[in-house]
């Protein structure tokens, strides 16, 4: 398991490749499922031009690690990597990477969803958006993941 909180720009695909080349044993995993959260240029009907992500150093890493450990205990997965940005960012910038390696796809999909959902619920990060008009405001709440069955019903 590897958890990183960083101010530097995040290249999620480079992180996945680097983790596979340096940490994982080649040929053992059957797949990797990744979630990459990126910054939108809109939120709640407003145009957003920049964002600052605040966090509680120490508590953030601790809670992401707890969520990753729960995923590793709950599903048959080989490894979990989470990299999360903090500081100033702009639309389309990657904010977070969750990558889960496993022998089979089902556990990797489920564990990846678990990690991003509970990270959003528990890890102490706060988004402060700047609108195109130059107004600054704190985001009050995250959108909820409705769950697999419900999201499919909405999609079809």
């Amino acid at each position, binding site marked *: 398991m590897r958890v990183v909180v960083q101010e530097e720009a995040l290249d999620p695909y480079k992180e996945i490749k680097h983790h596979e080349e340096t940490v994982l044993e080649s040929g053992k995993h059957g797949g990797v499922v990744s979630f990459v*959260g990126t910054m939108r240029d809109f939120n709640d009907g407003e145009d957003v031009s920049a964002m600052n*992500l*605040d*966090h*509680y150093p*120490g*508590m*953030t890493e*601790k809670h992401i690690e707890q969520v990753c450990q729960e995923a590793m205990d709950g599903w048959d997965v080989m490894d979990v990597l989470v990299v*999360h940005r903090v500081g100033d960012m702009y639309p389309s910038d990657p*904010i*977070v990477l969750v990558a889960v390696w496993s022998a089979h796809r089902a556990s990797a999909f489920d564990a990846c969803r678990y990690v*991003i959902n509970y*990270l*959003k*619920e*528990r*890890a*102490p*990060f*706060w*988004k*402060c958006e700047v609108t195109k008009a130059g107004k600054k405001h*704190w*985001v*009050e*709440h*995250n959108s909820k993941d409705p769950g697999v069955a419900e999201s499919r019903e909405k999609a079809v």
Partner: protein
Amino acid sequence: MEIDVKFFASLRERMGRTSDKVTLDGDVATVSDVWNQLSSEPIPNNILVAVNKEYTDLSQELKSGDEVAFFPPVTGG
């Protein structure tokens, strides 16, 4: 007892500071007592509390040197 206090995000701006130190009389004190030393207003309903970087609530008892953090709902990911 001495308690280290931290504020984050919109609450930090509202309180006008990132951290504070609170001294409480007596041997027994809760997170609620800390808030009451910091503000004459009741704690807003949506504010979350952590002691030594673990989520808890206002009724948690504290010991000297504990770090108490107050912050609004989290919005990472």
